[in-house]
C-alpha cells in the first residue's frame, strides 16, 4: 500500500480553481518530485499536503491515516521552504530546536538532537550564529537541519535549491540524494528544474495549470511522454517536436518532413504505434530527442530500428563533451547530438541517423501521444 496518497485533490482560492483533481501516490521511502512551470500549483499542492492550506475536496492520506483535517504539526511532516524561513531572532541551534521546545522535549535531549543533526550536516561551528550571519548554502543546510531533527514520516521540500548559485546547487543536490539514501524517509520535492527532477526522483509528477499531466518514473516520463507538454518540458536540450505528415508505402508507413527550398525528407517507420495508421495522409508531430538523432557512427548499435537521411546542417555548436548540430525540418530547427569529434561543417549536407525506437508521435489537435 502506498505511503502517501492523494486522491482527486481540488483546491480553489475563491472562485479560481488552482488544483484540478490531482491523484498521486508514493510508496514508503520514495522520492516524489513535483515539476511544472511557474504558477502551475506545485507549492499549493505541497502546502495542502503540509496542511498549511485547507483543501476544497479530495483526500490526503499519510501512512494510511486520513490527514485532511489535521493541523500541520499533527501530520508528522517536516518542510523546507524556498526562502528557508529561518527565524531571524533565533540562533541556528534555537532554530533547529524550536519545534522540540514547543513540544516540550527536555533540554538534554534537545541538545543531543541538535548535535547529531549538526554533525550530519556539518554545521556544528554555526550553531551560535544568527541566520543573518550565514551564507546562502549554510542557511539551506540549517533549514534542512530543522527538518531532519524532527525525524518525520514525510519530508516536504519547496524548491530548496532555487536560491543557490549553480555550483552549490549541484553539490546540494547530491547531498540531498545521499541523505535520502541514508535515511530512507519519504520525500515530496517541488522544483521547476527538470534536471533536479530527473536526478533525484523515484517518481515524477508533471503538473500544468493545476492538472496532473503525467505521473511515472523518471525513465517513463523521459522516454514515454504522454503529451507534447511533458515531452517538451522534460529534458535538456528539449525534445525536437517536428511537424510532419504520415504517408504510406505499400504495407508500411512513412513520416515525411517538408523542408524550405529543399526536397522533403521521408523516413520509413518500422514498427509504428498501432494508432499511427489512422493518421495516414494527416499531419502529426514527430518527437525525437537530440540524442536519438546522431551521426551514423555514433548511433546506438542496439537500436532495432534506425533510418538515415541526408540533412543540411545550418549551425554547429560544440559543447565540450558533445557537438550539437542544427538542421531544419518541417520549418523548425531540429537539434542533433553528435560525438564531440564528429566532423560536421555548417552549410554542408551530412547523413544523420534517427533512432526510431526512441521517437514518438503526437496528434497536433489534442497534443496527446499517438499510441
Amino acid at each position, binding site marked *: 500500500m502506498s505511503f502517501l496518497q492523494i486522491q482527486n485533490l481540488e483546491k480553489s482560492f475563491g472562485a479560481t480553481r488552482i488544483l484540478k483533481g490531482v491523484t498521486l501516490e508514493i510508496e514508503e521511502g520514495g522520492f516524489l518530485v513535483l515539476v511544472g512551470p511557474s504558477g502551475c500549483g506545485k507549492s499549493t499542492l505541497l502546502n495542502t499536503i*503540509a496542511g*498549511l492550506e485547507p483543501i476544497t475536496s479530495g483526500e490526503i492520506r499519510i501512512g494510511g491515516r486520513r490527514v485532511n483535517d489535521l*493541523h500541520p*504539526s499533527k501530520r508528522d511532516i517536516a518542510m523546507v*521552504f524556498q*526562502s528557508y*524561513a529561518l*527565524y531571524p*531572532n533565533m540562533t541556528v541551534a534555537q532554530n533547529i530546536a*524550536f519545534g522540540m521546545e514547543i513540544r516540550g522535549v527536555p533540554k538534554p535531549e534537545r541538545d543531543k538532537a541538535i548535535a547529531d543533526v549538526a554533525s550530519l550536516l556539518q554545521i556544528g561551528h554555526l550553531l551560535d550564529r544568527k541566520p543573518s550571519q550565514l551564507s546562502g548554502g549554510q542557511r539551506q543546510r540549517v533549514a534542512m537541519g530543522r527538518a531532519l531533527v524532527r525525524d518525520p514520516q514525510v519530508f516536504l521540500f519547496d524548491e530548496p535549491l532555487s536560491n543557490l548559485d549553480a555550483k552549490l546547487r549541484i553539490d546540494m543536490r547530491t547531498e540531498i540524494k545521499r541523505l535520502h539514501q541514508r535515511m530512507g524517509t519519504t520525500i515530496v520535492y517541488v522544483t521547476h528544474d527538470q534536471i533536479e527532477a530527473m536526478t533525484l526522483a523515484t517518481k515524477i509528477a508533471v503538473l500544468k495549470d493545476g492538472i496532473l499531466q503525467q505521473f511515472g518514473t523518471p525513465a517513463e516520463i523521459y522516454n514515454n511522454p504522454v503529451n507534447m507538454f511533458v515531452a517538451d518540458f522534460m529534458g535538456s536540450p528539449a525534445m525536437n517536436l517536428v511537424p510532419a505528415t504520415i504517408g504510406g508505402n505499400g504495407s508500411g508507413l512513412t513520416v515525411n518532413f517538408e523542408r524550405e527550398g529543399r526536397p522533403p525528407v521521408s523516413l520509413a517507420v518500422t514498427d509504428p504505434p498501432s494508432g499511427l495508421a489512422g493518421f495516414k495522409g494527416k499531419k502529426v508531430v514527430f518527437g525525437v530527442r537530440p540524442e536519438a538523432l546522431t551521426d551514423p557512427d555514433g548511433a546506438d548499435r542496439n537500436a532495432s530500428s534506425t533510418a538515415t537521411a541526408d540533412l543540411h546542417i545550418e549551425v554547429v555548436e560544440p559543447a565540450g563533451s558533445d557537438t550539437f548540430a542544427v538542421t531544419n525540418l518541417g520549418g523548425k530547427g531540429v537539434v542533433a547530438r553528435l560525438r564531440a569529434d564528429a566532423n560536421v561543417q555548417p552549410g554542408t549536407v551530412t547523413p544523420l541517423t534517427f533512432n526510431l525506437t526512441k521517437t514518438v508521435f503526437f496528434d497536433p489537435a489534442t497534443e496527446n501521444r499517438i499510441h
Partner: protein
Amino acid sequence: MSAAPSQDNAARTGIIARAVIYSLLILFAVYYLLPLYVMVVNSLKPLDEIRQGQMLDLPSTWTIEPWLSAWSTAQIGVSPTGLKPYFLNSILMVVPAVAVSTLLGALNGYVLTKWRFRGDNMVFGLMLLACFIPFQIVLIPSARILGELGLAGTVTGLVLIHVVYGLGFTTLFFRNYYEAFPTELVRAAQIDGASFFQIFRRILLPSSGPIIVVTVIWQFTNIWNDFLFGASFADFDSIPITVALNNLVNSSTGVKEYNVHFAGAVLAALPTLVVYIVSGRYFVRGLMAGAVKG
C-alpha cells in the same frame, strides 16, 4: 594627470555642499530650539526679571523656585496643589493606554496579515476610518458610553477612550509592517507546532522592535498631549496634566506668574521629550539593524 585637478574640484564642491547643508541644518535646529530655550531660561528667573522684558537673556539670578511652585504649590483651579497630582494622572492614563493600544494593534496587524479571513480587508478599511474621525464627533457618544459603563470622570475611562481611539492608528502601523513579514516564517512555526499566541510572541514580536518604537512614540505623544478628551471626560480629581496646565495659567488670581507658567509648561512637555530622546535612539538602531540584515 587630468584626474588630479578634477578630484580636487570634486573635493571642493563636496566641502561647499557640506557647508551649505550644515548651515541650513543649524539654522533650522536653532529655529526649532528657540522656543524651548525661551521657556527654560525664563522658568529659571525671578518674576521681576521677566517683567523687565529681556526674554532672551540668561537669568541674572538663578532660581528653581518657579519649578518647585509649579510642581507642588501653585494654584490649579481652586486648590493649591501644583501640577503633581495631574502629572500622576497623566502617567496613570498614558502608560496603560499606550501599552494596551500598542499590543492590540500588534495583534490586529498579526491577524489581518497572517490569519486572513473572509472580509479582512473590509475590517481593516473600517478600522482605518477610525483614523479620520475627528475627536469632536465622538465626544457625545463617548460620554454616553462612559456613563453607561460607570467610568465617567475616571482615569480608567480616559484610558479606554484613548485605547479605542488609538486602535486605528496602531493597527495601521502593525498591519503594514507585518504585511512585509514573511508568511513562510509563520508557516514554519505552525509546522513546528507553535500556537497562535506562541507564533505571535516568539516569532513576530521579537522582529517588531522598530514598529513598536514608532507606535509607542506616536501613541505616547498623542495621548499625553490630548486636551479635548481630558477636558470633556475627566472629573476634577482625574484631569490630565494638559488640562491642569491650562487651569494653572488661567486660574492665577492677581499677578500672572509667568516663570511658574513656563516651568509648568516644560514639566508638561518633559515626558514626551524623554520618550523621543530615549526611544528615538532605539528607533534608529532598529532601522540600521534591518538595513544591515538585508
